[in-house]
């Protein structure tokens, strides 16, 4: 395989072209099959899955850059869930990926009487109805973790949505035998962190677009004989938003660096990213709507395609309250400086 000078940048370029294409084509579908196929062709969904499992053996930084770039547009594909969460699960559980769309179902209820049996429902599973396969991660009532990989047909799916009309379905299991073992415990524990990281990446990508749209609006919309940028109050909103956006992106960069340097830092990394991007999503959505005025508050306008996503993603895989407490416990004050200076 020839070495490419900046494979990551080429990847981002290809992804950007594909999502821009999708945006311009204005496909009003809940699952953009054409975009998904393009992203599969580029190799993003299984980028970080080990080669011997059928993936590309690519790096997390490259996958994160690709997913973040993709979310600068309001896309309707589960690229973050698959490229980040499913890929991590596949690697951890040594599951082969054979094309197709695999979705992780976390937190499935199970009973343990000698063997682990998954029975019951899980709500708000991202994209379940479009999955070909599901990796189901379960915790029995006695705490024993387990998993099973199955075809989508083996479960019942009732459709649901988040605020952004993205598929968030209820999946019901009727007695599935799960595999248990020490190696599985980490995978089951880590999925929440991978999910939080995925949503953080999505938020960071969307925020760059929200900032650009808002600045564009403020420079073009005129009232009282001048563009909105002529008013100090508006200038300050834009500056505050820029601060949130760069902080969100830095938080994601930091998380990726922490994980790359020491995989055991996954939970800390996910926590910083989710808390900071969640806060940035709150502030930026509010300011974006404020600057856009009434026109931005309509269903016709582009802005709400982003802000409904931000309002959804900030609460998925744990919101700031949950993760800030986790972070506060993981990095007590006497370890704070040491940890903060671990990377770079």
């Amino acid at each position, binding site marked *: 395989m020839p070495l490419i000078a900046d494979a990551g940048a080429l990847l981002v370029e290809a992804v950007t072209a594909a999502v*821009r294409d999708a*945006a*311009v084509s*204005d496909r009003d579908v809940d699952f953009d099959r054409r975009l998904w196929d393009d992203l599969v062709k580029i190799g993003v969904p299984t980028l970080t899955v080990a080669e011997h499992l059928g993936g590309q053996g690519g790096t997390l930084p490259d996958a994160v850059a690709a997913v973040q770039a993709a979310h600068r*547009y*309001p896309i309707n594909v589960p690229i973050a869930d698959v490229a980040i969460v499913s890929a991590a699960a596949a690697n951890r559980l040594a599951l082969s990926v054979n094309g197709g769309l695999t979705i992780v179902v976390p937190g499935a209820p199970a009973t343990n009487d000698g063997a682990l049996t998954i029975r019951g429902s899980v709500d708000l599973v991202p994209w379940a109805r479009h999955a070909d396969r599901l990796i189901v991660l379960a915790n029995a009532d006695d705490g024993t973790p387990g998993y099973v990989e199955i075809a989508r047909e083996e479960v019942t799916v009732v459709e649901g949505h988040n605020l952004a009309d993205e598929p968030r379905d209820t999946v019901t299991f009727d007695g599935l035998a799960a595999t248990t073992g020490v190696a599985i415990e980490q995978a089951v524990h880590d999925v929440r962190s991978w999910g939080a990281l995925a949503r953080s990446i999505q938020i960071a990508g969307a925020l*760059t*677009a929200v*900032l*650009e*749209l808002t*600045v*564009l609006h*403020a*420079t073009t919309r005129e009232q009282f004989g001048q*563009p909105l*940028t002529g008013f*100090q109050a508006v*200038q*300050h909103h*834009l*500056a*505050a938003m*820029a*601060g949130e*956006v*760069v*902080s*969100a992106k*830095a*938080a994601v*960069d*930091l998380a990726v660096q922490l994980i790359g340097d020491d995989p055991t830092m996954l939970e800390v990394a996910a*926590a*910083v990213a989710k*808390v*900071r991007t969640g*806060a940035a999503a709150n502030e930026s959505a509010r300011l974006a709507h404020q600057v856009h005025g009434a026109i931005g508050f309509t269903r*016709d*306008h*582009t802005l709400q*395609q982003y802000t409904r996503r931000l309002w959804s993603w900030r609460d998925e895989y744990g919101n*700031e*309250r949950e*993760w*800030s*407490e*986790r*972070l*506060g*416990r993981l*990095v*007590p*004050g*006497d370890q*704070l*400086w040491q940890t*903060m200076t671990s*990377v*770079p």
Partner: protein
Amino acid sequence: MSAVTLTGRIDRALEFRGTPQLSRQARQLRTEVREFLTEQRAAGRFVPSCDAWLCGHSAAFSHAVAERGWLGMTWPAKYGGHERSELERFVVTEEMLAAGAPVGAHWGTERQLGPNILKYGTEEMKQRLLPEFAKGAIQISAGMSEPSSGSDLASLRTRAVKVDGGWTVTGHKIWTSHAHRSDLIVVLCRTGDDDAKPRDAISQLIVDLKAPGITVTPIRLISGEHHFNEVIFDGVFVPDDMVLGDVGKGWEQVGAELTLERSGPDRFLSTFPLLAAYGEACQSGTADEISEYGRLVARMWPLRVLSIGIVNRLAEGSDAGLAAALVKDLGTRLEQEIPEVARLSATAQADGETRRLLEQAIVAAPGFTLRGGTSEVLRNIVARSLAKSCP
């Protein structure tokens, strides 16, 4: 539903260049600095403080730092510097700030005034002054703000009039940190006509604080401490060889200096000692107290990443004005938020050390978002930059 068209121009304007990994030398240096700080603390040379880079003035500590080769770190050896990288300097400064060490005596000199002399000074001036700065032997203050000219610095009225062999300076500076214990002061003054544009009419003159005609009066902060001064100049003579850079180019020169002043980790670490103490004390507290601490950590940690990005920009000669304004705005607001949050934690307040640092932070806090450029001014700068990035 309208389709979206993005140009990515704003992304590029806001790009912060990351650093994959600090060099082995930089990491080794960090260990050395930590050992030094531990020794100094153990020997009773300092007690960790909030805002120590302003309030912690210790000539002895600065000498000790200089002896280790940690002043003028990036300056050429021929000027007494140590020719180390900007990132290595960053490591030293962030370690000292996080430890709440008393770096106040050398801070302004080392951070911005020395570098500006390195950039704009004559060879003779650089040979004469920089080695003394790097030894911690001479300190220099910045005379910029005036009673009527704060944010609107260009409206300053201190005037330098050309005389034989030099200039005479008359005027009134305020908020000059440590002027009462410095040797020199760089005075930003008007040398051109009153109606000329600032960028052609303002100069920087280096004045000897022992020269006749200077009166230094203390300003006491609400903490009761004396770090700031009013400095009155009454026909003070300044020889020609003490003009910094070019006559009439002072405004442009001070712009670069302001970026250096705004861009460092001192803009988000001023209350770090309190955050660390709160973060330790609250572990036995409620989930809410711990969560609030975690929230502050998540705000601070990315700022370090952004700050390193600024160092990289400056090191490669790129403009960092926008980046510095953004990080200072975010950082100083966070510095204020830390005591606001810590105060509400009963568990933290019950800890003596946390309470000591909290009290320091509360009385210092109003200054964070004022000094070195108010948040309001910084936000105007950011917004102008953003608007310019749009077609």
